[in-house]
């Protein structure tokens, strides 16, 4: 399948934006200015972007605590995201959500989620909406290897299958749930779990945009055609700790460095597209520069943005004393 040039450029830009956004957060968090929990998606960019390269604004996704990448891949603007993470009134959730709760329903982004396994049931509902409203949409749940052990996730596989929903379950398997390896916590295989609920299974290397694009494309096409849910098992690695502050003492020395050197989705993308002359280096460099600037501006704007007004405390919720 030939990927249009404009999709390639857009996807590269999204991956680069995620990377820079996250690397910058890593730095900013260390200064102590960003409060709360921050979970970085660095290293996993090709997954969210590869999947979302098939989605429109009218399709829906649900994300996880590690949500920045999915948000950017689905089109949420970095200014609003950065401001949100800094707790500003200009944030995409007006500063009331923070890193773990970035959402933009108007873009079909049903929210990052602080609850592991929170997303898959919601995605069954979004898929049901697409089906009942006959809008041709599909709904995609991103979740981790750790989340694949939550009852909510497992029930959702069955529900989506029983209702023949246009839902795609993307297991982003980065080998760990917090400090615990999936080799310990996940009995059996994701493949057999999919079979257990009669769901077609796909898998791919999550550091290769082209692999994700192709595999997710098939799964999404299956769902969009009304054939029911599909599972995509994406093999990944995360480059930072579970959250900012985690020293990763559970992982072998040098493991991440090796992955950074050998499995960087951005490098691999660039190599491939330039090798076969799909894109030239200059246009990629241009994107890199433009993204660098965009992130720089997002941080400057976020820091300068106003804090929420006190009234915001009582807004957007019904309050009885």
């Amino acid at each position, binding site marked *: 399948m030939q990927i249009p040039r404009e999709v390639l450029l857009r996807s590269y830009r999204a991956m680069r934006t995620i990377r820079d956004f996250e690397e910058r957060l890593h730095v900013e968090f260390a200064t102590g200015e960003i409060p709360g929990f921050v979970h970085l998606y660095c290293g996993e960019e090709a997954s969210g972007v590869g999947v979302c390269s098939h989605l429109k604004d009218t399709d829906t996704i649900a994300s996880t605590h590690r949500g920045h990448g999915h948000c950017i891949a689905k089109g949420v603007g970095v200014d609003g995201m950065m401001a949100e993470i800094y707790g500003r009134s200009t944030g995409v959730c*007006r500063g009331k959500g923070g890193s773990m709760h970035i*959402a933009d329903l108007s873009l079909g982004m049903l929210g990052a989620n602080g609850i592991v396994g929170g997303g898959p049931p919601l995605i069954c*509902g979004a898929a*049901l909406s697409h089906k009942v409203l006959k809008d041709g949409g599909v709904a995609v749940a991103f979740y981790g290897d750790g989340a694949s052990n939550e009852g909510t996730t497992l029930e959702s596989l069955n529900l989506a299958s029983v209702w023949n929903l246009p839902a795609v379950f993307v297991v982003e398997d980065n080998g760990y749930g917090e400090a615990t390896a999936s080799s310990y916590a996940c009995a059996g295989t994701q493949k057999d779990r999919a079979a257990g609920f009669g769901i077609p299974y796909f898998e791919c290397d999550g550091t290769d945009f082209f692999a994700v694009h192709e595999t997710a494309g098939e799964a999404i096409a299956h769902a969009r055609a009304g054939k029911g849910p599909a599972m995509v098992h994406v093999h990944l690695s995360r480059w930072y700790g579970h959250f900012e502050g985690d020293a990763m003492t559970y992982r072998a020395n040098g493991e991440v460095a090796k992955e950074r050197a050998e499995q960087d989705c951005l490098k691999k993308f660039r190599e491939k597209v330039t090798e076969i002359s799909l894109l030239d280096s200059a246009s990629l460099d241009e994107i890199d520069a433009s993204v660098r600037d965009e992130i720089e501006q997002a941080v400057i704007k976020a820091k300068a943005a106003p804090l929420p007004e006190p009234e915001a405390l009582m807004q957007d919720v019904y309050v009885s004393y």
Partner: protein
Amino acid sequence: MSKKSFRQAINEALRQEMRRDPRVILMGEDVAGGQGGSADNPDAWGGVLGVTKGLYTEFGAERVFDTPISEASYIGAAAGAAATGLRPVAELMFVDFIGSCLDQVMNQAAKFRYMFGGKARTPLVIRAMYGAGFSAAAQHSQALYPLFTHIPGLKVVIPSSPYEAKGLLIEAIRDDDPVIFLENKVMYDDEEDVPDDSYTIPFGEANLTREGDDVTIVAFGRMVNFANQAADRLEKEGITCTVIDPRTTSPLDTGTILDCVAETGRLVIVDESSPRCNMATDVAALVAEEAFDALKAPIRRVTPPHTPVPFASVLENLYMPDPARIEAAVKSVMGYKAKQEA
């Protein structure tokens, strides 16, 4: 207007709203019933106590969804569907089963609107049966509305009669926030006149089922009937009561409660939920803070003891508040003399 049972009133509310708005859908375990069964009778049950009977037949498989026994995923699905354009009414069967799916209610549906900075609406109704008196034992008899009332972002409705049930359920379906709608399982066959047409009863507006001079009784759901029975008897002895049915615990019509207490100066609260951190404590605290001046006597609560619901009827009857205990509580506040005076 015709006599309708509590069950019929709810069925009619669902039917009328589903006719009015194609986005209203129904889901739950056996809300139709019989899917895949050998009799090929997919509308076999209409819910475990027949409340949704016939809706599948009218609205079909595109609007009425039987679910696997998977509360977490289908209640979560209802929340997700609500956030993406539908107006689901999900049946949880017994409210006791909330333990299997609380996260989707408490951390998802209830929080979306606030947590997402006002960018989400979640027009979701969760219907469930509550209450003791059915010999259904500890895991099928709880009231649990205090749990929901405690959680910001939820609205909580407890209808006390067929008329109330219909109007409040239609209001719930049209509300843009998640609503917990609780039906007392021993009231389904109660009958009264209920308009045939559609109507709504607004949330947060209490209903005074009677007015009196001596004592204000605040009661919830089935307890409203018990309170009225007690008030009938007391009237014969010359004690007149105001009985308040708040209809919704969240929002709570604090104004009406405070006004009535300002007039009577005495308050009895009847709540069939477990006594700790329940609605009886909630209303008592409100009044002890905001109407302290008016109080002529201690605030009495009539509730069950802090135990699970026992199975044997003889114990379950002791467990439940009843008109006699309400009567006694009213008399005790009437008879109260402050130590200084006594």
